[in-house]
């Protein structure tokens, strides 16, 4: 190959490279600008003491993280979020799966049920919170209960069950978790229903030919085929429930002592109440890492189950 030819070739290669890079440059710029730089900035802030306004930030190294490790209220908020997540994983997802199974059969008004079950997720969390705050209201006017739940309990003679639902540490978080599950089960329902509809009908026919009853068909056909979809729903439920906070704010405002605190409300509190932006960023980094770790563990578990 002559030197003129090789020069032309390398010129072409360079052009190819440059044009390829220019095509991915906008995507890289967006990724760097909206993901890498903000994350770096948050991590950098977590190493500082800053009130969010003043120009000067004091470098404190890992002090914020050290304090966070010993912050009892932070870990309590983490437990509260885990509690909401556990209720969502069980109550919400079992309900969603049961309803998806029911709607996957040949039943009347299937479309209507789908619409009704998918209504709560499309409502704003603020609206849902306000509606449920009214339902769970413990106030009275004269001898009449204002809240719908207490009113109904009174009407059916269950006076002993009338309660301060959102102002009692024993019930406040559970009420929030149940409302969160009520609002969220529609997502799981739609995803699981879509998953059920992709299962090849011939598998069920084959199972029937082999003499399998409906219970063993469910365990040996439906569940294995649905495993990847169930895992997606589980991951989405965990991430969504751990990060829930709008519902909490609209149901109990600034909270009931620390009984309804979750990590996001703690981060908000560090920013807006105590004006500790550096500490809030450290909480954000720590919380993000925990969620990444949980997602990673679930992914590994899911891979193992698939192999099994």
């Amino acid at each position, binding site marked *: 190959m002559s030197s003129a030819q090789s020069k032309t070739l390398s010129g072409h290669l360079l052009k190819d490279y440059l044009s390829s890079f*220019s095509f991915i440059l906008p995507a890289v710029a967006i990724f760097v600008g909206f993901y890498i730089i903000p994350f770096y900035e948050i991590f950098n802030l977590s190493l500082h003491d800053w009130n969010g306004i003043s120009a000067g930030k004091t470098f404190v190294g890992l002090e914020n993280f050290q304090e966070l490790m010993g912050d009892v209220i932070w870990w309590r908020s983490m437990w509260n979020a885990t509690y909401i997540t556990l209720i969502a994983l069980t109550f919400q997802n079992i309900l969603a799966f049961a309803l998806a199974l029911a709607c996957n059969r040949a039943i009347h008004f299937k479309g209507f049920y789908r619409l009704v079950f998918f209504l709560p997720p499309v409502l704003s969390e603020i609206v849902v919170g306000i509606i449920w705050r009214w339902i769970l209201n413990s106030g009275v006017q004269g001898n009449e209960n204002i809240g719908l739940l207490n009113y109904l309990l009174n009407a059916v003679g269950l006076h002993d069950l009338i309660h*301060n639902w959102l102002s009692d540490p024993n019930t*406040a978080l559970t009420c929030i978790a149940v409302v969160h599950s009520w609002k969220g089960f529609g997502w799981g329902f739609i995803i699981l229903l879509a998953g059920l509809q992709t299962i090849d009908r011939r598998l069920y026919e084959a199972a029937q030919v082999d003499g399998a009853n409906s219970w063993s068909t469910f365990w040996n056909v439906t569940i294995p085929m649905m495993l990847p979809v169930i895992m997606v729903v589980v991951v989405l439920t965990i991430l969504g429930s751990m990060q829930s906070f709008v519902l909490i704010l609209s149901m109990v*405002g*600034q909270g*009931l002592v620390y009984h309804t605190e979750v990590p996001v409300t703690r981060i908000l*509190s560090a920013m807006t109440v*105590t004006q500790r932006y550096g500490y809030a960023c450290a909480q954000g980094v720590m919380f993000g890492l925990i969620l990444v770790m949980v997602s990673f563990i679930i992914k590994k578990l899911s891979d193992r189950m698939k192999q099994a």
Partner: protein
Amino acid sequence: MKRLFLFGFAVFCSIFSGISCSPATPQTDRIVIWHWMTDRDKAFQALALQYEKETGIKVILELYAPSDVYSQKIIAAAQAKILPDIFGILDEKSVVADFITSGFVADLTADFKADDAAWEKVLFPKALLVNRFDPDNPYGVKPGIYGVPIDITNIQMIYNKNMLKKAGILKPPATMQEWFDASSALKRVGLSGFVSGWGELWMADCFATNYAFNIMGEDKVMATFRGEIPYTDPSWIKVFRIFSQMREKDVLVPGIVTKSNKDAEQDFALERAAFAFNGSWCVNVYNDMNPKLEYGVMLPPSASKEFPMKIWGGAGSSFFVNNVSPNKTKAIAFLKWLTAKEQQTFLAEKTQNLPVNQNSLASIPPILAEFSSSMESTTHPAIWPLNEDALVLEAFDRGLQSIIIGEKTPEKVAAEVQKVKLRQLERQKRIKNDLYQ
């Protein structure tokens, strides 16, 4: 194709670089104001139109509510250096001080002092105190006046006249014992006692500090903030006990601890509670909710004769001028106009808030006059020589909630608050030592 791609890339780059730059605001014939006062927006818009007619300067009012979201928006705008010409700071004095020392807020002292302090003299001195920084203030702010109050307010107890009459209570209670007796009388005829928006922690905190001033006086409260007196002191235990007594005597409406102030206002307006703890802004709110409501205003029942009862009050809402705005002079001129007698009378009539201009008081309704008659008893964290550490305050407010729901005793809460206080004092000492080293 190549040209199209290059054009697209150039547009993308210009948009991207535009996002990261703060917009340069040239001097114009318009002033931009960011405010949070939903109830006053209509009246403000009307005044803005009038100002444009009179001066040719367009006033653009942008409403961002609720107030806590507004507060965050202002902090974010300060960080991004895109504050409007006029804005409010709805935080403690220490935060206002941070805005000032960071160069975001204009010093208005010269404007207030001009023409033999004409502007300063016409406004209520208590309202100006909130925006004034004295020499040797603990925040290191240059002494002066930095904000313009646009109304005054105070937070007191309100009672329903008809409900009290039904329970045979002839006059509003003046002492704690009388209040507890009144609550029992109300209970006997099936009526509820007291409501307040204590789901918003600052309101419970405000109630508690009223009693702290009443039981131990301002000096001892400040000594506690300085760390010289512990929260386990008997006087503070007395303050915490007020909350446990209210619970034991069944004075509080159910669910008060998570109730928003809007819900509490609704409860009082719809006669679900005979007493409320609320600010003078409630006149407008109650009028909207139940125009027939008959109520009166009283100071919180005193718990001690040793010191006078103090209530939070002073400037209700204040506006600050952006120090780097090219429209600074115009913004100050507008605020001067807004606080003049005619505009303040208009605002008082339309929004039922107490005017900041002393000459506008003549035209206010009787219930607002009742509120204004206690202005001499007002105090406010913004005028105290120092404020409590935010983390201690959080522990204090959460502790009050614990007492109300019967989860902890006053003594236990006091010990827990003191523990946080000691930790914060230690931290402050360490930061100081680091600075000197």
